[in-house]
C-alpha cells in the first residue's frame, strides 16, 4: 500500500515537470489559429514548423542566437583561463587561514549580493567606454560573475590535491608554470571541464546583465525570449519556438553532464 502511494506521488511529481515542457514543445509546432482556442488544443490537428521557419528566416533571431553563442564561448574561455590560474595561485600561496576566510567571504559576497546594485553603474561605465549594445559589454559583465565563481570552485579542488603530487616535480626543479601545466592540470582536467560546463550554462541563461547593456543589436536569446510579450500582444508561436531553442540545449547538457552541472549549481550549499 505504501509503495503504491509512493509511486503515485513520484509519478505526479514527474508529470508536473514533464507536462509543462511537453506543452511548450507542442505549442511550438501548432497552427497559429489553435493558440487561443477554448478548450486549449492539446493535441494539434496539424503539425507545423512555421514558427521555427520564422525564427530562421528572421535575421534578428539568427543574430541573437549567434550573439548568445559568442557570449557563451568568450565568457567560458576567458573564465576558465583566468579562473583556473587564479585558483592555483591562491591555493599555492600558503595564505593564512584568516586571509583564506576573507577570500572565501569575498567569493560568497560576489555570488549573493544584489547584482542589480552594480548593474546601473556598469551600464554607465559601458556608456562612457562606448561599449553599450555590444557583445563585449555582456561578456565583460558576465566575467565579473563567472570568474570569482570558477576561482572558488577550482580553489577547493586545488586545496584538496595532495602536495606529494608536486613535490617530485619541485625536487626536479620544475618551475611553477611547468608544475601547473604538466603535473597539476592533467589531474584536475575533469574539474576544469565541470567548471567550463557550468560557466557556459550560467552565461547562456544569464539575463540581468545582458538586458541592461544590450537591448538591440547585441541582444541575446534570453532577452529575445522575454521580448515576445510586446505591445502587439503576445506572439505565442514564435515565443514558444524561441523558448524551445533556448531550453533544449540546456536539457541536453543536463542529461549528459548531470553530475557536473549539479555539483556546480549546489556548490557552496554542499561542501566539496
Amino acid at each position, binding site marked *: 500500500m505504501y509503495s503504491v502511494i509512493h509511486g503515485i506521488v513520484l509519478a505526479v511529481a514527474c508529470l508536473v515537470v514533464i507536462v509543462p515542457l511537453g506543452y511548450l514543445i507542442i505549442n511550438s509546432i501548432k497552427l497559429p489559429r489553435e493558440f487561443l482556442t477554448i478548450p486549449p488544443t492539446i493535441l494539434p490537428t496539424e503539425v507545423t514548423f512555421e514558427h521555427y521557419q520564422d525564427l530562421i528566416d528572421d535575421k534578428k533571431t539568427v543574430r541573437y542566437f549567434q550573439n548568445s553563442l559568442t557570449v557563451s564561448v568568450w565568457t567560458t574561455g576567458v573564465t576558465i583561463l583566468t579562473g583556473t590560474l587564479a585558483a592555483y595561485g591562491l591555493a599555492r600561496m600558503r595564505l593564512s587561514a584568516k586571509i583564506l576566510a576573507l577570500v572565501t567571504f569575498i567569493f*560568497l559576497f560576489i555570488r549573493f*549580493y544584489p547584482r542589480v546594485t552594480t548593474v546601473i553603474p556598469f551600464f*554607465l561605465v559601458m556608456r562612457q567606454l562606448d561599449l553599450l549594445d555590444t557583445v563585449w559589454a555582456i561578456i565583460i559583465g558576465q566575467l565579473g560573475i563567472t570568474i570569482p565563481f570558477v576561482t572558488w570552485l577550482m580553489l577547493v579542488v586545488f586545496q584538496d590535491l595532495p602536495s606529494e603530487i608536486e613535490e617530485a616535480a619541485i625536487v626536479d626543479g620544475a618551475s611553477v608554470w611547468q608544475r601547473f601545466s604538466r603535473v597539476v592540470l592533467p589531474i584536475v582536467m575533469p574539474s576544469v571541464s565541470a567548471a567550463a560546463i557550468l560557466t557556459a550554462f550560467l552565461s547562456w541563461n544569464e*539575463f540581468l546583465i545582458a538586458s541592461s547593456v544590450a537591448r538591440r543589436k547585441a541582444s541575446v536569446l534570453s532577452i529575445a*525570449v522575454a521580448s515576445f510579450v510586446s505591445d502587439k500582444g503576445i506572439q505565442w508561436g514564435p515565443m514558444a519556438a524561441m523558448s524551445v531553442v*533556448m531550453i533544449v540545449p*540546456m536539457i541536453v547538457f543536463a542529461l549528459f553532464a548531470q553530475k557536473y552541472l549539479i555539483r556546480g549549481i549546489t556548490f557552496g550549499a*554542499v561542501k566539496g
Partner: protein
Amino acid sequence: MLRKPATWHRRHDVPWLIAFVLPAFFIVVAVQFYPLAYSAALAVQEWSLTKSQEPEGFVGLENFVEELGDETFRRSVRNSVLITGGAVILEMILGVCLAYLTMGSSWRMRAVRTTLILPMVIAPVAAGTLWRILLNYRAGLVNHLLSLIGIQGPEWLASPDWAIISVILLDTWQWTPFVLLVAGAAIASIPGDLLEVAAIDGASRWKTFLYIELPLLTPLLLLTLVFRMLESLLSLDSIYSLTFGGPGYSTYTMTFYIYTQGLRNFNFGAAAASSWIFMAFASVSIALVFWFQRKDW
C-alpha cells in the same frame, strides 16, 4: 642536474603565483568592486537621466529618505517578502519530502531524479514565458485541467493576488529541485547504523526522522534556506517574463523595482539608494551563510 633546496623554490614561486592571480583580480575589481563603489556614490547624488546628462549634485541621504517613503518601494518590499517567504517555505517542505521519496540508486529512482531536476536547468526567463503560456486565463493548460475536475480557474496573471501566487508557483516549480538535491545529499550521508539502532530500539519511522535525522539535517537545511532566500530575492528574470511586475505594481519585487527605477526610468540616484537598502539586508544574510558554512555543528 643541480638540485635547489625546496625553500628557494617557495620564495622563487611567489611572483609567479601572484602573476597567476592578477588577471582574475583585475577583472573582478573592475567589474565588481568599481561599480559597487560607483553605486555607493550614485546613492547620495541627485541624478535622473531624463533631466540631466550629468549628476546633479550631492544630496546626502535624501534619496534614501525619499525611497523609504515611496509607495511603490514599500509595496515591492511587501511583495518580495510574500513571494520569497511563500516560495522558500514550499520549496523546503516539498524538496525534503521528495528527497526522501527519491532515495535509492535503482535506475528508476535515478530516472525520476533526473526528471525532477530539469526545471532547474531551464533559463529562468524561459521558465517565465513557459508559465505565462500555461497560466493564460482563457486558453491556458492549467485552467483547462482545473475545469476538467470542475474548478473554475482564477485569472492567474490578471488579478493582483493570484499574480503573486503565480510567481510563487513558478519559483517553487523551478527551485524545489535545488532543495531536493541538497537535502538528498545530506540524507544520504547520515550513517545507516544510526537509523538501524533506532529501528531496533523500536522507534517509529516518524520518530526516527524527528529525533535523529532532523537534528542532523538542520544545519544544512538552514544553509539551504538562506541560499534559496537570497537567490529568490535577487531574481529578476522570471518575474520579468511572467508578469513584468504587473498587473499594475502588484508583483513588483525589490529587484524588479530597482531595475525599472534604474534602467527604465533612468532615475539613477533613487535606484542606487534603494539598492543599498536592499544590500544592507542581503549582507546580513550573506554573513549568515558564511557563518553557517564555517561553523562545526
